[in-house]
C-alpha cells in the first residue's frame, strides 16, 4: 500500500486512520496499533515541519509493507534534507517543548533509520516486529530482529 498525501497537517488524522487499519489487519494488538499510528504521525509531522517548513501544498509518500514477522513503513519526501540534530530526541530530564517526536518513534518502532543514500529529500524506514510467536513454522527461520 502506498499513500501519497499533501503536507497539510489537517490530513494527519487520515494517516493515523490508515495506519490503524493496516496494523489491525496485520494482527497487532490494540496497544501496538495506537503506538504505530502515533509513531507514523510523528514521522509525518517531522516531514511537514522540518522538510517543508510547514508548507501545506507539498507531498510525501507513505508505503506500508506487511511481512510474516513484521510490518515496514517507508516515508519519502522531496523536501529539504533533515539534519539529524534538528530532530534528535532531547533528554527527558530537560523539560521543554519539543524534541519528543523522534523519541516516540524510537520507543514504538523496533527499527528506524534514514537512508543516507536517498537522492531525493528524505527516506525514513521504520520497522515493527510481531511479538515472537513460537511455532513449528518458526523453527529454522533466519529472519533477524534489529
Amino acid at each position, binding site marked *: 500500500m502506498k499513500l501519497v498525501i499533501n503536507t497539510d497537517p489537517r490530513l494527519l488524522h487520515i494517516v493515523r486512520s490508515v495506519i490503524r487499519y493496516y496494523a489491525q489487519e496485520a494482527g497487532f494488538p490494540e496497544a501496538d496499533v495506537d503506538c504505530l499510528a502515533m509513531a507514523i504521525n510523528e514521522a509525518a509531522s517531522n516531514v511537514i515541519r522540518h522538510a517543508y517548513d510547514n508548507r501545506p501544498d507539498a507531498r510525501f509518500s507513505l508505503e506500508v509493507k506487511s511481512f510474516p514477522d513484521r510490518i515496514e513503513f517507508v516515508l519519502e519526501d522531496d523536501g529539504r534534507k533533515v539534519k539529524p540534530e534538528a530532530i534528535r530526541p532531547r533528554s527527558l530530564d530537560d*523539560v521543554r517543548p519539543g524534541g519528543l517526536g523522534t523519541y516516540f518513534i524510537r520507543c514504538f518502532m523496533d527499527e528506524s533509520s534514514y537512508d543516507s543514500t536517498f537522492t531525493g529529500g528524505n527516506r525514513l524506514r521504520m520497522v515493527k516486529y510481531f511479538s515472537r510467536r513460537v511455532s513449528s513454522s518458526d523453527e529454522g527461520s533466519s529472519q533477524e530482529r534489529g
Partner: protein
Amino acid sequence: MKVQVRNVDNVSVIDCSGDVDLYSSTDLRGTLLKEMRSGKPNVLVNMTGVSYIDSSGIATLVEGLQLSRETKTRFGLFGLRSNARSVLELARLHTVFAIFDNEKEALEKIATTEPFGGL
C-alpha cells in the same frame, strides 16, 4: 478538536475535545497562552474529551507550564484518558504537571496546589 473556555469561580477551565496534533494544537496553544497572559490565577485544561495527543500537544502543555512560572499561574490538567496519561508517562512528564482525576478534585485542589506543577 474543539477548545472552549469556562470560568468557574477563580479558575479558568479550558475544555478540549478530539485529537490534539500538529494541526489542532495551535488552537489549544493560543487559548492556553492567552488565559495565562491575561492574569488568570488558576488555569485548568480539561482533557476528558481528548481522544489523542501527540508530541505537538505535549509540547503545548509544556509551554503552558513554562509560561505559568513567569505569570505565577497555578496550572493543572484533569480528566486524562489512559492513552494521554501513557504518553505523558512515556515522556516522564506525568510528575511535572499537577494532574487531577476529575474536575471536582481539580477545582478543589488547584488553589492550594504548589504553583508551576512539580518543577
